[in-house]
């Protein structure tokens, strides 16, 4: 039955400004999406495709287009293209076929292996995709190269819903009105209009590299955005969707390598930002998001190589900052973030090689600083951070080769100093830090080839004797190497690993250094020094 005004059939009716998809007279549908026919979008011979789960005449069980789909649970080996382009979708492997379901009619995916491959013709499609699913309907900008394309998500794994109701892709962008009409058409025929009821968007658009624009969909109920847009490598911008309820943003936009900016989303409820923007390497700026509830920032901005600055976001709840800004190699400065709850700073600023200064952040709860500033080779000085809880200083300042001085940090809890200052080639002296908990100093000052001055008593209270390569390729004066050897004697270490290596610089003195070596060797040390004594 058509709804008419006089003798004129109505294509659209509105309640206020809202388009009405269906109107009833009692139980009878008197208006159903107007007379919009999506095949009209291909009337000028545009390339593309149109699949409709609700037109059962287009569905077949076998990939050769035989054995009609007739009842729910029939497999779909062939979905006929209604665009007129004969871009039929075919699945020849039985186990990978989508399943026809009814109420509403839809093609259900198991999200394990189900997909309907279609061969996109030469030239590909650059235009609009309208996708109607059981969980929401939306229109996207797309660029799809010629060749195989999976209807049903990448490799059958990732799809924004669990069933396909309708899908239209046209080479040549649809107008807003055309896209809206197509969405309404799919909705009238069984697709869910809005994503507003979805709580988990986990992996919905993951690896959908064909998306060039993303619509402003309703994500207000979403709490879980894990992997939602990971690998959407063609998105250059992202809309201001509602993520106010989101708690889990793990990997959400990781590898969105074409995003140049990011909107000021509401992330105030977010607790986990693990790798959220990792390798978004075209982002040149980052907004002042509310990350006050975030506890896990591991890998969050790793590899954001185009960021030249970073905002003063609230990271006061953050405990894990491991790898958070690794390879952000365009950052020239870093804000005074609240990192007071941070325990892991492993590799946090590794290879941030444009940082020329570093702020006096609160690292008092930090236990692991392994590789934290490794390769920050533009730092000329280092602040007097609170590292009193730090146990792991493995390679912490390795290759910070512009540091000309080093502060008297509290390293009293540090056990592992392996490679800690290796390659700090501009250091000429070193402070009397607390090494009393240290067990391994392997290669700790190796290749510090300007290091001439080293204090006395530096190792008097150490807990282990692994100094393998510790002072090779240094420039220690006679006094300094004597200081080191005498201090090792004072430590009394006579068990466990007992190795000491020095090369470069001066040989130990006959009066002080050499007797110290004799004592160490009598305690089982293997000692190698400049001059060969």
């Amino acid at each position: 039955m058509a709804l008419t005004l006089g003798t004129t059939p109505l294509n659209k009716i509105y309640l206020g400004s809202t388009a009405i998809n269906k109107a009833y007279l009692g139980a009878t549908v008197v208006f159903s999406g107007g007379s919009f026919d999506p095949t009209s979008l291909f009337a000028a011979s545009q390339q593309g495709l149109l699949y409709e789960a609700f037109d059962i005449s287009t569905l077949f069980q076998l990939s050769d287009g035989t054995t009609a789909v007739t009842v729910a649970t029939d497999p779909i080996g062939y979905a006929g293209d209604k665009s007129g382009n004969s871009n039929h979708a075919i699945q020849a492997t039985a186990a990978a076929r989508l399943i026809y379901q009814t109420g509403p009619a839809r093609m259900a995916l198991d999200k394990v292996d189900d997909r309907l491959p279609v061969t996109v013709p030469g030239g590909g499609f650059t235009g609009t995709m309208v996708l109607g699913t059981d969980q929401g309907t939306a229109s996207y900008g797309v660029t799809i190269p010629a060749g195989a394309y999976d209807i049903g998500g990448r490799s059958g794994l990732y799809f924004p819903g669990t069933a396909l109701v309708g899908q239209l892709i046209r080479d040549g962008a649809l107008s807003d009105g055309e896209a809206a009409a197509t969405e309404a058409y799919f909705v009238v025929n069984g697709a869910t209009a809005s994503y507003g009821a979805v709580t988990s968007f986990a992996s919905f658009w993951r690896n959908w590299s064909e998306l060039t624009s993303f619509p402003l969909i309703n994500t207000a109920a979403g709490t879980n955005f894990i992997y939602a847009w990971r690998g959407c490598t063609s998105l250059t911008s992202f809309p201001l969707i509602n993520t106010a309820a989101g708690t889990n943003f793990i990997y959400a936009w990781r590898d969105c390598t074409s995003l140049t900016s990011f909107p000021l989303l509401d992330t105030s409820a977010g607790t986990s930002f693990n790798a959220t923007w990792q390798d978004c390497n075209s982002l040149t700026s980052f907004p002042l998001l509310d990350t006050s509830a975030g506890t896990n920032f591991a890998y969050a901005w790793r590899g954001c190589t185009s960021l030249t600055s970073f905002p003063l976001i609230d990271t006061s709840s953050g405990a894990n900052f491991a790898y958070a800004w690794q390879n952000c190699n365009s950052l020239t400065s870093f804000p005074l973030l609240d990192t007071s709850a941070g325990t892991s700073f492993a590799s946090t600023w590794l290879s941030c090689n444009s940082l020329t200064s570093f702020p006096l952040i609160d690292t008092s709860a930090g236990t692991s600083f392994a590789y934290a500033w490794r390769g920050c080779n533009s730092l000329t000085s280092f602040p007097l951070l609170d590292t009193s809880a730090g146990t792991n200083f493995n390679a912490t300042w390795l290759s910070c080769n512009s540091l000309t001085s080093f502060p008297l940090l509290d390293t009293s809890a540090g056990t592992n100093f392996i490679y800690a200052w290796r390659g700090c080639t501009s250091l000429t002296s070193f402070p009397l830090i607390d090494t009393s908990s240290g067990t391994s100093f392997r290669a700790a000052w190796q290749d510090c080839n300007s290091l001439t001055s080293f204090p006395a008593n530096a190792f008097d209270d150490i807990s282990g004797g692994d100094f393998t390569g510790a002072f090779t390729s240094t420039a220690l004066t006679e006094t300094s190497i004597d200081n080191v050897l005498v201090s090792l004697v004072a430590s009394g270490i006579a068990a466990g690993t007992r190795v000491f290596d020095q090369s470069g610089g001066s040989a130990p003195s006959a009066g002080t250094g050499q007797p110290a070596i004799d004592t160490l060797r009598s305690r089982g040390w293997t000692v190698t020094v400049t001059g060969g004594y």
Partner: protein
Amino acid sequence: MRLTIACPEAMRDDANNLAMVLGFGPDDAATYVALNWQDASGNVYACASLPVSDAFTTTAQATLQRPAWDTDNVISMAAANRAQAALVFSLTPVTALPDKLTACVGDDALATLAAMGLTHVVDV
């Protein structure tokens, strides 16, 4: 009923031969392809999920016959028989093992895989 099957990496060729015997044609050789799933020990699996008839489990465990379509001996019956020998059917999810072709019944394929101890391979 829906059957969800976990095929360990080393068994893919054998399992695809079995899929051809139990399926419809040579295209079923692509049943187990992508190693998208892993167990807690890091063993990787190619998984498939599909609705089957109640008789399927009986057919799958009976003596295998070369299908009529396979006039060119595409199928290695030896491989198919090896896969069949490794087949474990269960009406409830059981843990997938790297030396078994584990097939479990369950309406929700993803939930079944989770109950089999499998998760998406984490690509870092």
